[in-house]
């Protein structure tokens, strides 16, 4: 099985550079603006797009991403509409990999088999489900692999060498290294510690390793991208969405362009890095 994710990382390897992975929340602040943001991301330099599936109780996320999810839900976003948004995006872009990120309950309620079928048809390439550790692989990870979707697992500073093989066993697409113990948007990643951790993970797998949580600036993104196959930015982008809403929380003419500007700056940071050693 080869997905858009595999193709994109192969391509980047040839180009000798790391990936810039962006996270945005589906439906934040409304479905139309959110789709416009999505469409603007590849042009601004995103290599891989993660789309948050909004959930009322995102226990591993900080206030920014939690608020973005609640804005989206208030605007009427659902899992079904999130898949519709991916389908719309695919009309003009059939190469940028799309990874859905979120929590298990909405998928469980949708029905695992129908969700996987609908996600695949819509043009989703991979899933990151924060509250499904390898111990619960039979829930979604194994069925996702069968359905032709990558299941991307999080590795964290608490995942030691003994546990890594279990975490990596059914992972595909890439490994997402969470650079801090903590929630999204909290601390700043320490690029030296991250480099060490990435090297450690690479001793266990040939998959690309992308690093997220705690990257906000082009400088940090660049420092991280020197040592990893990709840098993920979420909270900083979501914060720009929020900062460009009107007093009632509605989109303004600046919302999409402000996001695109930040994404361009971050992409330049990542592109300035030399590629991580294999």
């Amino acid at each position, binding site marked *: 099985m080869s997905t858009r994710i595999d193709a994109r990382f192969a391509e980047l390897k040839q180009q000798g550079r790391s990936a810039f992975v962006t996270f945005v929340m589906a439906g934040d602040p409304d479905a139309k603006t959110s789709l416009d943001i999505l469409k603007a991301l590849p042009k601004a330099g995103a290599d891989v797009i993660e789309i948050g599936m909004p*959930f*009322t*109780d*995102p*226990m*591993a996320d*900080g*206030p920014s991403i*939690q608020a973005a999810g609640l804005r989206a*839900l208030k605007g009427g976003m*659902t*899992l*079904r509409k999130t898949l519709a948004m991916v389908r719309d995006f695919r009309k003009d872009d059939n190469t940028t990999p799309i990874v859905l990120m979120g*929590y*298990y*309950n*909405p*998928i*469980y*309620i*949708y029905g695992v088999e129908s969700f996987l079928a609908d996600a695949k048809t819509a043009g989703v390439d991979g899933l990151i489900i*924060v*509250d*499904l*550790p390898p*111990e*619960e692989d039979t829930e979604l990870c194994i069925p996702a692999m069968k359905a032709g979707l990558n299941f991307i*697992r*999080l*590795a*964290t*500073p*608490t*995942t*030691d060498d003994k*546990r890594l093989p279990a*975490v990596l066993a059914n992972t595909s697409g890439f490994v997402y290294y*969470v650079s801090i*113990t*903590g*929630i999204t948007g*909290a601390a700043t990643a320490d690029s030296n510690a991250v480099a060490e951790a990435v090297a450690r993970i690479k001793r266990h797998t040939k998959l690309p390793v992308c690093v997220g949580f705690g990257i906000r600036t082009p400088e940090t993104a660049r420092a991280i991208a020197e040592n990893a196959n990709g840098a993920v930015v979420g909270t900083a982008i979501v914060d720009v969405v929020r900062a460009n809403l009107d007093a009632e929380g509605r989109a303004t003419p600046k919302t999409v362009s402000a996001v695109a500007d930040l994404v361009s700056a971050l992409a330049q940071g990542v592109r300035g890095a030399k590629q991580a050693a294999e």
Partner: protein
Amino acid sequence: MNQNLPNSFRSGPDERGHFGIFGGRFVAETLMPLILDLEKAYADAKADPAFQAEMNVYLKDYVGRPSPLYFAERLTEHLGGAKIYLKREELNHTGSHKVNNVLGQIMVARRMGKKRIIAETGAGQHGVATATLCARFGLECVVYMGAVDVERQQPNVIRMEMLGAKVVPVQSGARTLKDAMNDALRDWVTNVHNTFYCIGTVAGPHPYPMMVRDFQSIIGHETRKQMQEAEGRLPDSLIACIGGGSNAMGLFHPFLDDPSVEIFGVEAAGHGLTQLHAASLAGGRPGVLHGNRTYLLMDADGQIEEAHSISAGLDYPGIGPEHAWLHETGRVKYLSATDEEALAAFQLLSRLEGIIPALESAHAIAKLSELAPQRPKDHLMVVNLSGRGDKDVPQVGDILKARQK
């Protein structure tokens, strides 16, 4: 109802923490290594006679166990049916059953070398119990509490602060127990290296539902013995209120394999089951939240809905996974009581027996007026009086005063 009934209702969970399809470990990877450590530390403790011996000393001299099993003569006369006994968990140090579990978890935390304890609390009873044992053992204590609950349970907030705990008012979501649990989990993800999360009920990722149940089972074990002494036989029925379900699990568990014992759990029906309530079994469906699969209140898209109860301790959109399983197997019958019924029961018990119950426990008392009169006079009925009502006196006082006007 499940056709393949198990040989024993007491053998769960399986090694992966499942009660039927319920339970499990649905948490972020950051927490998994710690949860596996905890599982091991608890298994070691359970197998260590010195652990139980030390617990027993504190249970007796610090908590004040055994709690009495009291024959409520006036209530029995008033209802005119079954003989009603109250299991007096409200007489425990700190005023509720919560202390049984907290003592156990703090002992495990000490074995694991953890110096910082976090907890979530709704009514504040679990927070007070945690703050108390942290004071006793010199541990740092942080309690997450929804901002709404901080308002309606002021006496307990003051108590926790006096005991040296830091109370963090949670401003996210509906600002009640569910949100306090989210924030406690966030703290834990952040401070996983030195922090022990002391969960207040039989919910959360495995091994919590099992561990909390084990610590609370002392309620049922004592009840068996005390009823033998009082009446020479087992009780005929048991009743307890359900938030997450820990006081109920503690009373029920030792009796699950006694088919002659009828068992009833009482959820909070709030304004009524067709309106705002907190009855996850009566009004919810199986889903995944806070580390386990269980019945949850949610919308068609799997988004979690806010619960409502007059009682802060029952105001949670989920229920422990073992209860979800006992519900589906049919072993336990789950009923519900509204805010109004709980208020009436609160006053009834106060007037007839001179015992002011917690609003939580009043939900169990409320169902007596349906269950007891239908039973013969030799029927032995035990109600778990999970906590005392001191914390609720200001809130209930305000409601009653407003009604007099």
